């Protein structure tokens, strides 16, 4: 039922909203949430519990009503207690079989005794029954029905910045924000609720003063030029350096604050008694929210269960809004006279001190409350079940205590301690730049909350350099505990729930502790307390108290479980956000596309794997490209190679130190193969070093090594303080390799450089022009043919390609991709770092002894290699061939070589060689097996064996005659 209009209500009575729930049509108002609109329509059954499918209604109305999760189409597990009402939506409760009212899962409630704590673990203990239980659990568990056709939602992510971030816009938070802003700080204040004001807006105690004061404060905050107020926004976690993700309906904002004030308040905690989960049993704050936010009558005839002043205020709020309060049941003994108690009694409400609610009596249909059965409750927390009193009512309002919303404080590294005075954990030592105020700080008195907020706000502003001149306010201690130490009532019939997410009862905890799970972390995992969607916001504190009592410890000794981000569930779409996956493309990428390239990732790059030809298979395309290189002319984009320049008097010395070969004696105009090791002597990169001047070198690295190698070289240059400088040209220079017997004929018309072997020998480097473009040419032969690696500034790459392509037409030029290159180099026996080497391979194992100059004064890895060289080799990289005409299953890379039942090596590369007309490969093998023509046996995935023979590399053109060409100048 709706109440008459209330000042501050959130609903717009001029705007009706039609919707449906479980197939029935309802009306609410704009500003309603689903639960409030249904409750106003006298719907009490909002959902079913997770395990026993018990009827559930409103508990918190604060974003934690996990038993009122709903689904509308592709939107599932929507929290009805906070979801704004929108026209035309068709909601259904999740976790039901059939429908909510006649849920066939209800029978599980009667099988509770067969579903003890730890049931999952026990069920899965028997291996034979595992499949049965798995099928059953998969059918019974899970919330909501996922539609796999749900479209991918692209949500933006924002970064934002402020001096002071205040989390929570209740009385203390608003006060903190205003104080910080007045001191000069730029402030952002966030609140998960649709409107700011916090508890002061609905815990009114039957009067208007609290609401009026917080409203005045809110107006000051809204008007303040240095404050941004963000509502419906959750501070979902805390990360280092005050980085807080703020989640709203649209997106996640990564807020980088200079200081943070946690004014996060506290979660009201339920009392534990028999049938405390019936629809109609709710937290006092939920009833107050219903009244003051949505003008909905929570019940007609209430019993208030209290253990603090908030309970008395709740009774007054009910009474002044026309709800009959049949009794106020106070867990505590007789209290000192107070104006609140007088006011309650003045309303004609009977107060039962030192009493508890023993049980809630269910209504006839089982979906509501018929009466509260109360009983005397002694100081030790024992109920006298023999002296009960039945009080008819249709709702029970619980106000027995609070748990601090300290999740973010824990995540920030706050040391918390249990305060007996307020019966909760409070901050003992806050991290630098983090401040707390209000209930999370153990401050509950409304006046003190404002002062505490002002103090925290000013402290936070001062932390970032905005000092206030005036004296900080003094904060008085609480005069009574806002939380009861033992709001738990045992009952022989159980069903006194501690965790409403997981349907955990008091006896479950008793049994778990009896079984030995008597540590809070173990208890959590065994019982699953706090592991449901609300993450223990209503259960952890009671669970902790129960464990403390069972183990004869204090709550402080028991401690809490670890609080991890996120504090509140965040939609995966928000977490994923817009995808930022950087990708590098060479300046010739679109040329490759035009030629039909099929791309493959090479680290962060996209490289042509091969060029698709109409009507040809992948293999045929690759072999066609190989044939073009071997017999005519091919061109490949090698712009992904790392390209680095080094200048200075010590440039040669620097290269001597980082590579295993010698470069001080490298002639100007020549290049040399370069292998780099780490300090343990393991090969980490290779390339070619070219000398362009006495103090000027240009060298390449592998594609994947470009960025890390440059970074490492920069580090080393800083460390060694040599007189030289490095310039990274990886992206600034494009490069192609023109390879094949016709390479000189293709290149000659485009350059004035004399390409004759005598003038431009194998392994030489020249600076010249190609097609009018300034270029560096290297005579290298990775693929085993006459080849020119041509490097030009990246903006000229397209023009270079066009010129070469045009010149090559008469010679049948063809682009070749990475796969053809791999095959061509394998025929030549050239290794690929990372494929033919691994994280343990030394130059000695890789057969690179010829490049290793151990007599140099120093190079990185030298000392390790001196030690390694004293040891016998464990493995050696060597070539092998399969038998000519072999037609069986071809071994693959990483297949093992087996010798007398033991692993004796593994394949690193293998491919069909068109030149040799047989399969060839490289493998690490035991040195004693790496003898020419020696037999090895390779084990396939199916266990069968394939025989192969060791063959020295290069497989193709072992005398390198094809690279020593042309002898004479080539006619242009």
């Amino acid at each position: 039922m709706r109440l008459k209009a209330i000042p501050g209500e959130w609903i717009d009575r001029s705007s009706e909203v039609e919707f449906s729930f479980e197939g029935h049509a309802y009306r609410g108002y704009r500003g309603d949430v689903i639960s409030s609109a249904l409750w106003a329509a006298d719907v009490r059954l909002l959902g079913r519990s997770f395990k026993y499918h018990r009827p559930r209604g409103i508990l918190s109305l604060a974003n934690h009503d996990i038993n009122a999760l709903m689904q509308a189409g592709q939107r599932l597990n929507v929290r009805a207690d906070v979801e704004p009402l929108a026209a035309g939506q068709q909601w259904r409760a999740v976790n039901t079989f059939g429908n909510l009212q006649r849920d066939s899962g209800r029978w599980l409630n009667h099988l509770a005794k067969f579903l003890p704590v730890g049931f999952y673990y026990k069920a899965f203990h028997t291996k034979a029954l595992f499949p049965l239980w798995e099928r059953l659990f998969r059918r019974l568990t899970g919330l909501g029905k996922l539609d796999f056709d749900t479209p991918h939602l692209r949500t933006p992510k924002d970064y934002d910045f402020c001096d002071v971030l205040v989390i929570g816009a209740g009385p203390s938070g608003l006060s903190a924000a205003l104080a910080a802003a007045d001191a000069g700080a730029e402030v952002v204040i966030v609140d998960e609720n649709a409107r700011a004001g916090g508890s002061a807006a609905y815990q009114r105690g039957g009067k208007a003063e609290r609401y009026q004061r917080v409203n005045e404060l809110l107006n000051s905050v809204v008007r303040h030029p240095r404050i941004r107020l963000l509502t419906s926004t959750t501070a979902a976690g805390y990360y280092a350096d005050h980085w807080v993700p703020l989640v709203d309906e649209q997106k996640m904002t990564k807020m980088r604050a200079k200081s943070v004030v946690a004014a996060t308040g506290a979660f009201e905690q339920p009392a534990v008694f028999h049938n405390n989960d019936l629809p109609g049993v709710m937290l006092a704050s939920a009833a107050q929210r219903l009244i003051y936010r949505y003008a909905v009558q929570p019940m007609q005839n209430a019993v208030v269960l209290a253990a603090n002043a908030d309970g008395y205020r709740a009774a007054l709020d009910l009474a002044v809004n026309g709800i009959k309060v049949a009794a106020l049941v106070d867990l505590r003994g007789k209290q000192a006279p107070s104006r609140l108690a007088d006011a309650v009694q003045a309303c004609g409400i009977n107060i039962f001190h030192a009493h508890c609610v023993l049980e809630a009596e269910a209504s006839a249909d089982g979906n509501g409350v018929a009466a509260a059965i109360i009983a005397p409750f002694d100081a030790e927390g024992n109920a006298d079940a023999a002296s009960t009193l039945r009080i008819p009512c249709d709702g029970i309002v619980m106000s027995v205590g609070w748990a601090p919303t300290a999740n973010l404080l824990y995540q920030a590294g706050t040391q918390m301690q249990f305060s007996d005075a307020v019966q909760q954990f409070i901050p003992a030592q806050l991290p630098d730049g983090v401040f707390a105020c209000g209930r999370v700080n153990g401050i509950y008195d409304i006046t003190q909350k404002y002062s505490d907020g002002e103090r925290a706000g000013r402290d936070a502003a001062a932390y970032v350099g905005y000092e206030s001149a005036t004296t900080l306010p003094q904060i008085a201690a609480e005069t009574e505990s806002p939380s009861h130490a033992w709001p738990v009532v045992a009952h022989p019939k159980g069903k006194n729930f501690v965790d409403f997410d997981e349907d955990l009862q008091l006896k479950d905890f008793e049994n778990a502790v009896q079984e030995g799970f008597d540590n809070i972390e173990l208890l959590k995992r065994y019982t699953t307390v706090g592991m449901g969607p609300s993450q223990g916001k209503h259960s952890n504190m009671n669970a902790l108290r129960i464990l403390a009592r069972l183990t004869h410890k204090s709550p402080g000794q028991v401690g809490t479980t670890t609080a991890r981000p996120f504090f509140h569930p965040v939609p995966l779409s928000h977490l994923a956000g817009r995808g930022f996956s950087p990708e590098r493309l060479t300046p010739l990428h679109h040329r490759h596309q035009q030629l039909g390239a099929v791309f493959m990732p090479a680290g962060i790059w996209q490289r042509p794997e091969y060029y698709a030809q109409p009507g040809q298979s992948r293999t045929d395309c690759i072999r066609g490209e190989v044939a073009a290189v071997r017999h005519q002319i091919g061109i490949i984009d090698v712009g992904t190679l790392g390209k680095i320049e080094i200048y200075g008097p010590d440039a040669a010395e620097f290269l001597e130190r980082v590579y295993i070969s010698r470069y001080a004696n490298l002639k100007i105009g020549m290049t040399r193969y370069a292998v780099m090791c780490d300090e343990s002597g393991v090969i980490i990169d290779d390339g070619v070093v070219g000398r362009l001047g006495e103090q000027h070198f240009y060298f390449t690295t592998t594609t994947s090594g470009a960025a890390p190698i440059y970074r490492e070289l920069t580090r080393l240059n800083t460390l060694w303080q040599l007189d030289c400088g490095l310039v990274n040209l990886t992206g600034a220079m494009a490069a192609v390799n023109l390879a094949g017997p016709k390479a000189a004929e293709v290149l000659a018309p485009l350059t004035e450089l004399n390409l004759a072997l005598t003038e431009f020998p194998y392994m030489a480097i020249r600076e010249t022009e190609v097609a009018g473009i300034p270029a560096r040419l290297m005579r290298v032969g990775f693929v085993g043919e006459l080849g020119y690696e041509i490097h030009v500034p990246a903006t000229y790459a397209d023009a270079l390609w066009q010129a070469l392509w045009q010149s090559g037409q008469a010679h049948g030029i063809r682009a070749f991709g990475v796969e053809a290159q791999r095959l061509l180099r394998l025929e030549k026996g050239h290794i690929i770092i990372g494929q033919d080497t691994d994280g343990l391979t030394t130059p000695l194992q890789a057969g690179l002894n010829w490049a290793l100059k151990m007599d140099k004064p120093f190079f990185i890895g030298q000392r390790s290699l001196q030690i390694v060289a004293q040891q016998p080799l464990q493995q050696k990289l060597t070539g092998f061939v399969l038998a000519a005409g072999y037609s069986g299953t071809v071994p693959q890379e990483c297949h093992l070589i087996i010798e007398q039942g033991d692993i004796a090596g593994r394949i690193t590369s293998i491919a069909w060689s068109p030149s040799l007309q047989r399969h060839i490969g490289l493998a690490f093998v035991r040195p004693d097996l790496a003898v020419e023509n020696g037999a090895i046996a390779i084990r396939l995935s199916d266990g069968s064996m394939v025989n192969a023979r060791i063959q020295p590399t290069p497989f193709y053109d072992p005398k390198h005659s094809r690279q020593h060409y042309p002898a004479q100048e080539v006619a242009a």
Partner: protein
Amino acid sequence: MSLIRKSPLHDVAAALQPEWGAINDMPVALQFDHGDGQRMATLGIADLSGLWRHGLKGPGSIAWLEAQGIVIPAVNSWAELAEGGLIARLGRTEFMLEDEPNGTTARRVQSLLAVERPYGVYPVLHQDAALMLTGTAVQRLLRQTCSFNFMALDAATQPLVLTTMVGVAVTVLPVATADGVHSRIWCDGTYGEYLWHTLLDIAHELDGGAVGLNYLILEGKSQ
């Protein structure tokens, strides 16, 4: 004129079929459509890769630049070149110079360094993708793409920021103009298409998009 240079963003711009012009032997998009002006006011992204630029680094770079009569900005800031264009100081001894369409300083520096090779001065070839962001929504785009707080910068002090944007290392500098604060961005050209596509996707959501150079530098609205 022989147009043999190509912007790292040429092909993605070409897909939008702009009206073409040329700067420094490179085709440049002059105008994409009649909406360029509106997009520039809201959130425009322009390709300025065609501007000539060159860099240098090394312990002798400051003295050498001073000897050439070129102003030396403070670390992490930039200055205007006497002949138009800018010099950006990327580190203690690293600089990038960029000419306006008719400027010659960067080109002159490149030519000198190719011949002279002075001690302690190392030429740095720049083939960057160069962008300009314009319009009222620039900050919104920056907030979605970069964790640096550009709002805290004062464009009047000519600051320069080396940071990452959508995972790419970039150099960013805010430029105060009569039309408001624009942002210049440079990145390695091989990341250019990725950066362009990513920024353009977001710009479209913010009612912006690509703009040609007609509205920016070719009609006198230079930085």
